């Protein structure tokens, strides 16, 4: 092919050729329902949202002291409101 821009890119070709994909067995007719797919999506492993905080000292302090402070505020709040 005269328009093939990969023609002279042997190194790139050799690298791209290493990218193999294993095709699983996919049945044609047994399609999952939308709801099942949504549940699967919700149940798939997800990133821990607190992970980035744990990597810094300030983040660790916030994760540790945050719940204590929240608890303290919540316990003092009724006293301030009702007394």
């Amino acid at each position, binding site marked *: 092919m005269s*328009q093939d*821009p*990969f023609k002279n*890119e*042997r*190194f*790139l070709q050799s*690298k*791209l050729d*290493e*990218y193999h*994909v294993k*095709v*699983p067995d*996919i049945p*044609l007719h047994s*399609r*999952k329902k939308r709801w099942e*797919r949504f549940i*699967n*999506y*919700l149940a*798939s*492993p*997800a*990133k*821990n*949202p607190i992970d980035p905080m744990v990597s810094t000292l300030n983040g660790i302090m916030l994760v540790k002291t945050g719940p204590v402070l929240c608890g303290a505020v919540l316990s003092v709040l009724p006293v301030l409101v009702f007394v």
Partner: protein
Amino acid sequence: MFERADELMIAYQQGDMESLDQLYLLLKGPIYSFVYRYSRDEQLSIDIVQDTFIKLQRSKHLYKREKGKISSYLYQIAYRLMIDKLNRRKKWRSFLPFLTPSDKEEVDLADRMSVREAVAALSEVHRPIVLLFYYHDLTHEEIASVLDIPKGTVKSRLHYAIKKLKEELGGEENVSRSL
């Protein structure tokens, strides 16, 4: 292979249900590979393959041989379904960021990872062009029709993507260094 696929599609349009099964066997692999290399999500790729063929069954009369190969037509359906799904996921993630799936890629060889990473690092507009051109042997015209962009844009994006891949993967000098 693709001439055979076109013949099977015509037979299916004429009512031969067995041709659909054969067409599926012939093209599910290439479509899965395309979607998987683009998204690196196995479950999404399986869903897209099934949805593509369901859509084909629902609108089999819309395919016209003069307009192009059945493989290009199916890549087009798969690409649109995949982009719709990925955009919908992006919206969900903006509401519920903790739903972001973790990367659970298997680590094989260092080299193999680097080519995967380099392909994944290409932008959303450049990645499908490299995949369709290199792995699926589509011409510039066919890619233009699958992605619904001008042929000139395909050429320029392909040129840019090759340049970017070479930067990411290193050049010939890396071969001699590693030997």
